């Protein structure tokens, strides 16, 4: 192992803050991956409670059913490292003020589910927090076709993108593909925080 690189990465991630909008299939899994990677600070935003039907793809467990997703994800992060600062907002993101919880984070992850909300959120971050990098995902439904997924970079917007996937309204959501995209988002966050891996 490259010890010098490892130390540098550890230090940088420890001092980084990642904001996550939505703690469903994308957000709950991305949070865990980033916590394992060593990200030191999180801002988590979600309005929902854990339901049994979420367990097919979201990072929760039977004994967490009924808990707020922000609290359940915070608990899960703390099971990986107690030395992580987690700020939670149990709230719905409302058009016009969606950027507010994310003002002080280094990178924002869009991990919402509804297409309209996803697009509105990206637009608000890009137009109101002009220097804020945002990582988003579109096209998570279905299974297979891993190699159709690409990264689209547009200035501060980085998208994990499958233009041929169907909407989840007309398809199914399954753990492998949703978690693949959640980790794709997490990997993009790491790249933004550390710069390109050379």
């Amino acid at each position, binding site marked *: 192992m490259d010890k010098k690189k490892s130390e540098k990465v550890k230090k940088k991630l420890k001092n980084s803050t990642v904001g996550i909008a939505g703690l469903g299939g994308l957000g709950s899994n991305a949070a865990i991956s980033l916590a394992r990677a060593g990200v030191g600070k999180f801002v988590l935003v979600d309005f929902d409670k854990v339901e049994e039907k979420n367990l097919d793809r979201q990072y929760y467990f039977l004994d967490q059913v009924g808990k707020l997703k922000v609290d359940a994800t915070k608990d899960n992060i703390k099971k990986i490292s107690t030395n992580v600062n987690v700020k939670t907002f149990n709230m719905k993101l409302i058009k016009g003020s969606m950027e507010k919880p994310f003002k002080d984070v280094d990178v924002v992850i869009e991990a919402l589910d509804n297409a309209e909300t996803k697009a509105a959120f990206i*637009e608000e971050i890009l137009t109101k927090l002009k220097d804020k990098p945002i990582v988003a995902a579109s096209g998570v*439904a279905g299974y297979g076709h891993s190699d159709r997924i690409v990264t689209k970079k547009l200035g501060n917007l980085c998208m994990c993108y499958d233009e041929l996937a169907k909407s989840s309204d007309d398809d199914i959501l399954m753990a492998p593909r949703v978690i693949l995209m959640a980790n794709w988002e997490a990997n993009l966050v790491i790249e933004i925080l550390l710069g390109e891996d050379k």
Partner: protein
Amino acid sequence: MSIDVNQKSVEWVENETVEQLLKRMKYTFPLVVVKINDKVIPKKDFPVSIIPDNSKIVVLHMISGG
């Protein structure tokens, strides 16, 4: 007299708005992020934002799922 839309060369139409271009391209998916020459166009400006000749336009659609 052409513009680049998602890496396709498309004829430039004078005084065409973003909204009209999306219609012409038959981009009917529910919602999109539109950038003209690297600048994000807010949705409310789609009916008034005019596309300049030689522009590079990127249209990304968001679909549900997460």
